[in-house]
């Protein structure tokens, strides 16, 4: 397999650790840049939205405000749902994303 891959060199523990430490500098800079972008997001202006916008939930029509479930913030994901089609015929990409959503407590 290694020849067919043209894979990287095999290194001893010391060389491997040195390479790991070198890349870690970039990894940390990346994490901190991500933090800085999140900080900038917190400084974005806001747009006022009509809170009475209607959505249909399992119990019938609700407002956008209801979708907050009493919490202060709401994240909404738009799933490309094809009305009238069963679950296996829905968007594979959105289904994929849904399998990445886990415990929301």
């Amino acid at each position: 397999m290694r020849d067919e891959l043209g894979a990287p060199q095999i290194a001893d523990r010391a060389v491997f650790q040195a390479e790991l430490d070198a890349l870690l500098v970039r990894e940390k800079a990346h994490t901190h840049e991500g933090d800085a972008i999140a900080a900038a997001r917190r400084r974005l202006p806001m747009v006022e939205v009509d809170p009475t916008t209607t959505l249909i939930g399992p119990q019938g029509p609700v407002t956008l405000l209801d979708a907050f479930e009493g919490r202060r913030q709401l994240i909404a994901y738009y799933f490309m749902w094809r009305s009238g089609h069963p679950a296996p015929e829905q968007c594979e990409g959105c289904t994929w994303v849904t399998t990445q959503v886990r415990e929301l407590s």
Partner: protein
Amino acid sequence: MATNKESEREHGKEHLAMKTPAIVSQLEWEAARQQLLVKEKALMHARDAIAAERRRMPWMEVEKKYEFDGPEGKVSLLDLFEGRRQLIVYRAFFEPGVFGWPDHACRGCSLGADQVSHLSHLNARDTTLAWASRAPQADIARLKARMGWEMPWYTMTDSFDADFGADQWHGHNAFIRDGDRVFRTYFINNRGDEAMGTTWSYLDMTALGRQETWEDSPEGYPQTPPYKWWNWHDNYDTETAPDPKWIDITTDPIGAAIRRREAEAKSCNCE
């Protein structure tokens, strides 16, 4: 127990002196967002570049014969691959002396466990995720049932954690195998662990990456086009080759939508 008022304050529901940003029109908001999007994309590409560097790391051969306890008894590191080419092992803290024992695993590791996405997608890229702790299998089985976790979870019996930088603190180690030879290819810990859980986060730390054609990988690495290998998590086994209709959608999304609408109009007598 906190009174309602205390709990409201805790959740910031009272309008305290928090200085909130300006309220602007949709147009102005979109302009501000577009500015930030430039930085977001640069960060995304920097992440891709780091993953490409990871794929160029040297490999460290694992020569020691490690032994784990699994649900069926003793297993080796090679067994943890479950026959797949790559393996990621997360060292989780669940053992005597850890806060929460024996009812729970460490709170941070438990939060991480709640973020582990459906493993069928990772497995479809020939990669296995396993968790490892020092707790006996009976406790691990009980914890998994209680919390609804389904990832393979082994008991460490030797110096595996110390040898791979995870005896004092949690961490993800990535391995690849060549037949029966096993190599360590990467290690992520500390705040790097925070970002783990999605299929992409796991694949991006492996020696082979996402195995998609757009990636900057060394010559000869396995790659197929993005989107096309994705499947519904309950359909990988039954549909071993991508559905031509899905290929059509991912190759020409707009054309496929038009063709679908035309086909639906034809099959329906309502027009």
